[in-house]
């Protein structure tokens, strides 16, 4: 069993978690061009190395950030999303 250190729940079986994909800065949906939006939605860095990703502990619906090495399957660090996003971000109304 592989363990994921959840910032809220401590070490848990990784089967309890869902990988939410690479952390990327979301463009403002109201003003972004279709092309840039497609890029944000579909394109990935998909690196062979350290990647910063969203993960969710499904049982508690807790989203956080994990840094993993995709070559060695090592989880290097996990922390609450507030560390990357200290302020609430509001988008313009469409």
């Amino acid at each position: 069993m592989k363990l994921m250190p959840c910032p809220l729940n401590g070490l848990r079986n990784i089967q309890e978690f869902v990988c939410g994909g690479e952390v990327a800065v979301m463009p403002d949906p109201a003003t972004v061009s279709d092309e840039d939006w497609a890029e944000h939605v579909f394109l990935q860095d998909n690196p062979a190395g350290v990647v910063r990703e969203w993960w969710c502990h499904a049982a508690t619906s807790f989203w956080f950030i994990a840094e993993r090495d995709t070559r060695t399957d090592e989880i290097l660090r996990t922390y609450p999303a507030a560390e990357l996003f200290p302020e609430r971000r509001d988008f313009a109304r469409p």
Partner: protein
Amino acid sequence: MPFGLLKYGFARSYPAKRLFPVRPPLKEGYDVVIIGGGGHGLAAAYHLAHDHGITDVAVLDKGYLGGGNTARNTTIVRANYLTPEGVSFYAESMKLWRDLSVRLGFNILYAQRGHLTLAHTDASVRTMRWRAEVNKHLDVDSELIWPEEIGRLVPSMDLSRTVRYPVLAALYHPPGAIARHDAVAWGYAARAADKGVELHPETEVTALLTTPDGSRVTGVETSRGPVRANRVLQAVAGSSSLIAGMAGLRLPIRSIPLQACVSQPLKPFLDPIIVSGSLHTYVSQSARGELVMGGATDPYPLYGTRSTLDFKEGLMGHMLELFPGLSEVRILRQWAGIADMTPDFSPIMGPTPVEGLYIDAGWGTWGFKATPICGVTMAHTLATGEAHPLIRSFALQRFRAFDQVGEKGAASVGH
């Protein structure tokens, strides 16, 4: 020593000729460089030489030929997809598979077994019916069958209603087949080499060379020195994002391991190929009697081919629900391949925004069956500069145009 053996030793036909010359000196430049010496790359090289007379071709691979996902798939060949684009494409591939042994002069042990996709819920019965209708419309032999007939085809499968996920129906695809995967790569390699294509295993591409503004590819930098080429094809499965990244391209691909395993050999008892999307299981019995089994891709992206207990526990639980008689059978070996998964479960094929760089990627868990048709269509695309009509809907551009080819319902098992 028996006399006969001595005579054999002196015979002119011994030692047997190598199938193909490997790693000749690397030239300064080629008409076409193909990165990736798996089935797709070698088939493209063969068809470039055979169909278009382009023989100044080098196939580069960082490992050995056919050592990536060509060696790691579960060898299933079928055309019972969901979208008209997908079905037409894979149906063309099936036509090539049937006489591939003859074309290559190499026995690929192609065995038509029939293919059953099980439905355990009303929703999946509906999808199977949909697939059957699309298939029939495009002249692909598929039909929905019920447990009575499934029982006749697979007497060893548990069709009782007392299990957790009873089998309600199945999509039956009689042309479904298996083939010897290594032989496919070797056959294409041998016939391509006959026509003058150079094969360079253990030659890793470390950079793509482009014009200063990055708009045009001019060659590749390799572990054995630079090579000039105005046309470069990348056919590297799990490493697709890394190679494309060398040209500054980002792809809609996540590299995720897919694990598989084989059991100890058993007497032949399972003729058709069995797939269950809901149970995340597929199984077929090889010519050697081993059960070749696979499941869903891993739950998160990774470039490592490690083995996990989670995979085996999940797969075996479901396998035993379908075939309780296998409970004493042992696993012989297991492995993983890195699948390049696209959001719509269709491949990415054709030209790229970088002139001269062509891509054959996004083959996720469905690439082996497409090997022959990828060779034909990618060779056409490289020779003419225009995407082959069969692959136009698989262009990289489709994501920017929100024009995906949604194949999730038929691509493989639960992702």
